[in-house]
C-alpha cells in the first residue's frame, strides 16, 4: 500500500469534444499591425472551431488578397488554406466546395476584396447559397494598400488626410439577404461574446453564412471622423438582438423566455437563441430584415446581430444533387464510363 505522497499531476490542458487542445487550432504568428481588428477575429475563429470540436483537417480556409485575406495564415495551421487572388475568392471557394462538399469552408475577405473588385463574384456566391462561412473583416478602407476608401466606407467619413468620402456605402448585409444568403449578420471585432456566438451558430448552419464584422484598421482608419473606428463602434453599435447559441452536444433544455426570445433549431441540432432588443426585429422575415437595415442608415446606427436566417433553403451542393462522397476522390469506376458507352456513342455518329 502506497504511503508516500504523490506529487500533484501537472494541470492537463483543456480538451474539446474530439480530444484536441486549443494549440491544435492555432495559426502562425500574425504579421498584421498590433491592435488590428483582424487579429481579434482570428482569435474568435480559433476558439469557435476549438469549442465546436471541429477536426482542423476537415476545414478549408479560403481568402482573397488584403490584410484581412492574409489572416487565415494566423489561425488553424492544421487546416488547408488557399489565399487566392484579389476579389475572386468566391469562385475558388465554390470550386473547392464542389470538389469536396464534405469539408467545412471558412472564407475571410475584406471590404475592398468583397465590395469593390469582388462584387461580381460575391453577388453570385450569395445567390447560389454555397455552403460556407464568408467573413468580411470590414474596416472601410484598403489596409494593405495604405488606406484608400472602400465601398463600405460611409458617406461623409474622413480619411486621415482629411479627404471625405462622398459616395454612399454599400450595406453588404442588406445586399446578401436580398441576393439569397441564408444566414446574415453583422458583428464587431471588439464584441467578443457576440462574435463568438455568431461564429458557432455559423458552424451549425447549412448554406451561405455572411458575417460582416466591423474590424478597425488602427493604422489607417481608427481616427476621429472615421465611422469604422473602435471609438465610433463603441458609440454607435446597436444590437438588434442578443445572440445566444446552444451547440448540439450540450444540454438544450436551457430556459428561455419564448415571448422575448426566438429559438432557431439549426441543421446540426444546435439551437440559435435570439433575444429581441430592437422592436422590429424579426430574423426570419427577409423583407423586414432588409427594411430594418435600410432604416438604420437613416438613424445613423450600426446594427449588429443576426439579421436573417433561413434554415430551410437548399444549398448549392444539394441543388446539384451530388453523390455523397467527395467528387475529388471518386474512383475511376465511377468517373470513367464503360467501353460499351463509347461504342454506343460511336454508333450514334456512324
Amino acid at each position: 500500500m502506497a504511503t508516500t505522497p504523490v506529487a500533484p499531476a501537472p494541470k492537463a490542458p483543456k480538451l474539446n469534444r474530439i480530444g484536441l487542445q486549443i494549440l491544435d487550432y492555432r495559426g502562425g504568428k500574425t504579421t498584421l499591425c498590433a491592435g488590428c481588428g483582424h487579429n481579434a477575429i482570428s482569435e474568435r475563429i480559433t476558439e469557435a472551431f476549438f469549442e465546436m470540436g471541429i477536426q482542423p483537417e476537415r476545414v478549408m480556409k479560403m481568402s482573397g488578397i488584403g490584410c484581412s485575406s492574409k489572416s487565415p495564415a494566423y489561425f488553424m495551421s492544421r487546416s488547408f488554406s488557399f489565399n487566392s487572388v484579389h476579389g475572386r475568392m468566391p469562385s475558388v471557394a465554390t470550386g473547392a466546395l464542389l470538389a469536396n462538399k464534405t469539408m467545412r469552408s471558412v472564407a475571410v475577405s475584406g471590404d475592398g476584396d468583397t465590395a469593390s473588385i469582388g462584387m461580381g463574384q460575391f453577388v453570385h456566391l450569395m445567390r447560389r447559397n454555397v455552403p460556407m462561412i464568408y467573413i468580411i473583416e470590414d474596416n472601410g478602407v484598403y489596409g494593405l494598400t495604405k488606406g484608400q476608401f472602400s465601398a463600405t466606407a460611409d458617406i461623409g467619413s474622413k480619411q486621415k488626410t482629411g479627404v471625405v468620402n462622398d459616395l454612399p456605402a454599400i450595406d453588404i448585409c442588406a445586399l446578401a439577404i436580398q441576393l439569397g444568403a441564408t444566414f446574415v449578420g453583422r458583428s464587431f471585432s471588439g464584441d467578443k461574446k457576440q462574435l463568438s456566438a455568431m461564429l458557432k451558430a455559423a458552424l451549425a448552419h447549412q448554406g451561405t453564412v455572411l458575417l460582416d464584422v466591423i474590424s478597425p484598421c488602427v493604422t489607417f482608419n481608427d481616427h476621429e471622423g472615421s465611422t469604422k473606428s473602435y471609438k465610433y463602434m463603441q458609440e454607435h453599435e446597436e444590437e438588434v438582438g442578443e445572440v445566444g447559441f446552444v451547440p448540439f452536444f450540450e444540454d438544450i433544455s436551457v430556459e428561455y423566455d419564448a415571448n422575448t426570445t426566438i429559438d432557431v433549431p439549426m441543421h446540426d441540432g444546435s439551437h440559435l437563441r435570439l433575444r429581441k432588443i430592437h422592436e422590429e426585429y424579426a430574423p426570419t422575415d427577409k423583407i423586414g430584415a432588409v427594411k430594418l437595415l435600410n432604416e438604420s442608415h437613416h438613424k445613423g446606427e450600426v446594427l449588429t446581430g443576426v439579421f436573417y436566417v433561413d434554415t430551410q433553403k437548399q444549398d448549392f451542393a444539394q441543388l446539384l444533387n451530388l453523390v455523397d462522397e467527395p467528387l475529388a476522390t471518386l474512383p475511376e469506376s465511377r468517373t470513367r464510363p464503360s467501353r460499351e458507352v463509347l461504342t454506343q456513342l460511336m454508333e450514334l455518329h456512324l
Partner: protein
Amino acid sequence: MTPTQLVAESQPAKQAADGSKRIVNDFSIQVATVNGSGSQSANSVLLRSIFRMGVPVSGKNLFPSNIAGLPTWYTIRVNKDGWVARKTEIDLLIAMNPETAKEDVLSMKAGGAVIYDEGLKLNELRSDLIFYAVPFDQLTVATGAEAKLRKLIKNMVYVGIAAQLLSIDMASVEETVRKQFAKKVKAAELNLNAVRVGHDYAKSTLTKQDPLAVEALAADHPRNTRGKIIIDGNAAAAMGAMFAGVTVVGWYPITPSSSVVENLIDLMKKYRVEKDGKATFAIVQAEDELAAIGMVLGAGWAGARAMTASSGPGLSLMAEFAGLGYYAELPGVIFDIQRTGPSTGLPTRTSQADLTFIAGLSHGDTKHVILLPGSVKECFEFGMECFELAEQLQTPVFMLSDLDLGMNNWMSEPFDYPEKPISRGKVLSAEDLQRLGGFGRYKDVDGDGIPYRTLPGTDHPLAAYFTRGSGHNEKALYSERPDDYENNMLRLARKFDTAKTLVPKPILEGSGKEKVGILAFGTSHWAIIEARDQLTRESKLATDYLRVRAYPFTQEVHDFVARHDRVYVVEQNRDAQLQSLLKVDLDPAFAVKLRSVLHFNGLPIDARSVSAVIAEEEGVAK
C-alpha cells in the same frame, strides 16, 4: 404546276448534252441560305447520305454572328481522295437566299451548276453556268406539310433535287433521314416525303446538264468511309472530358466553345448519374470567365478533375487566374476553341491566333502547357490527355482547338477507349505522410521539378499546407527571400522542361529526307496534306511535314528544322505566332530556315493557299 405533273412518268436523268466526261466524287456543293431557316438538318442529310455511300465528305458551315435572318453558307466537299479541307471553288450552288443569290452566282467559276428558286431568275445573270430552276414554294405546298412547317420542309426539297441530279442513292438518303429523326417517326416521314417530292420533280422535269455525280465506293475501296464516324470537334472534346473522369466544370457561354459544355452536359446526364439519381459531377454556369476558371482552380486544388471551355475574350479574362495556377501549381484544364480576334472580332469565324498569348498567359515569367489537336479524334484523345498532364504536372493545361475543328463536321475513325488507367499525379495520402514524417509542398524531391501535394481533408496533422500566389519556400511558407524566390522559379522552369517529355510528340509525314519541310499545327493539317499532294503532282516537289501537337516543343521539332534546308511554317493568323515561338525556342542557327505561310481572313485555310506560296518560293510554280 399541278400535282398531277408531279407524279408524271419519270424519265432517267439525261447525260450532259456535250459528251463531256462526268466528274465523279470530286466536287463541292454550297447551300446558300439564311440562319434560323432550319437548313442544318437538310444539309446534314445531304452530307451523310453521300457519306453513307462510302464516299469521303466534309461539311463546313459559314454562319453569321446573329441568331436568325442573315446569310449562311454550308459547303459540302465530296472527294474520292479523302481531301476534306475547304475548297474555294464551288461546283454546285443551291441558292436559297435571295439576298446573296446574285453575288453567290457571280462568284462561281464557269461551268458550275446552280439550283435556284425559279422566282429569282438567276439564269439571267450568267450564260456560262448550268441553271436548274425549281418552284420551291409550290413543291413545298405539294408535300402537304402544314403551313408552319413549310419553312423547314422546303429545305428537304432541295435535298431531294440534289440527290436526284447527283444520283445519290435514295436508299442511303432514307436511312440517313430515319436515323437523324430516330426519335420522331412522324417528322421522319414528313421529311422523307419532302425529299421524294424534290427527287421526283428533278427526275420528271430537270434535264441533267452538269457533269457532277456521286458513285458509291466499292466496299473494298481503300477510301470507303464505312466504319467511319462523322462528328464535330466540340462533341469529341466533350467525350474526351467525360472519359477522362472530369467531375467539376465551370463555364460561361461563348461561341464557338459553348457546344463543348452543352454536349458534355447531355453526356454526363446520360452516363454520369448513378442509380440513385445522384450526379458524379458538378457543372456550373458561372457568372463570367474569371469565375469559371476560379472554380476550376479551386476544384483542382481540392483534388477534382476540373475544366472550363471558352474562346478568345474569355481567355483574356482568365489571364490573372492562369498565372495563379502556374505559380501556385494548380491542376486545371482549359479548352480554348479559337475564333477570329482581336477583341470580339469575328465570333463565328475560325483562327489560330491565341497561341502566343496563351503560351505566356499572365504577367510575370509565366509559361503554359498547350495541346494542339488537329483532328476530331485528337479532340477526344487530347481532351483526356489534358487532365492527365494537368495532374501530373500540377499546372493548368490548355487545349487550343478552333471553330473549324470544333463546330464543323469531320469524318474520323471511331475513337479508341482509353487503355491506361487514370493517374492522379503526385498526391500523398495520410499513410504516406505517416511514413515520410511530413512533406515539403514545393520541394523538388524527384529532380523533375514536380513537387508532391496533399488534398484538403487528408487526415493527418502534417497534411495541411498553405496555397498562395505570393512568394513561398519549399515548405509553402510565405517568403520574400531572394534565394527562395529564385530557386522556386528555377524549379518551375525545370518542371516545364519535364513537360516537354510528357506532351504528345509531333507527327512526321514524308520520307524525312527531303530538303523542304513544312511545320504546322491544328486544322491547317488538312490543307497541308492536300497541298503536299498538289506540290508533288503539279510541281514535282517532295516535302516533309511535321505536325506539332504541343507546346513546349519536343526534341523532334528541333531535329526536324535542323534536318531541312527550308521549313515553311503554315498557320492561320497574321503574326506568325507558331513561328515566333519557334524562333524563341529553337537554336537561332536554325531559325534562319523558317518561312511563313499565313492565312487569316476568318475562313478555314485551303490547300491552294499553301501550295501556291511554297511553289512560288521554291521556284517551281507553273
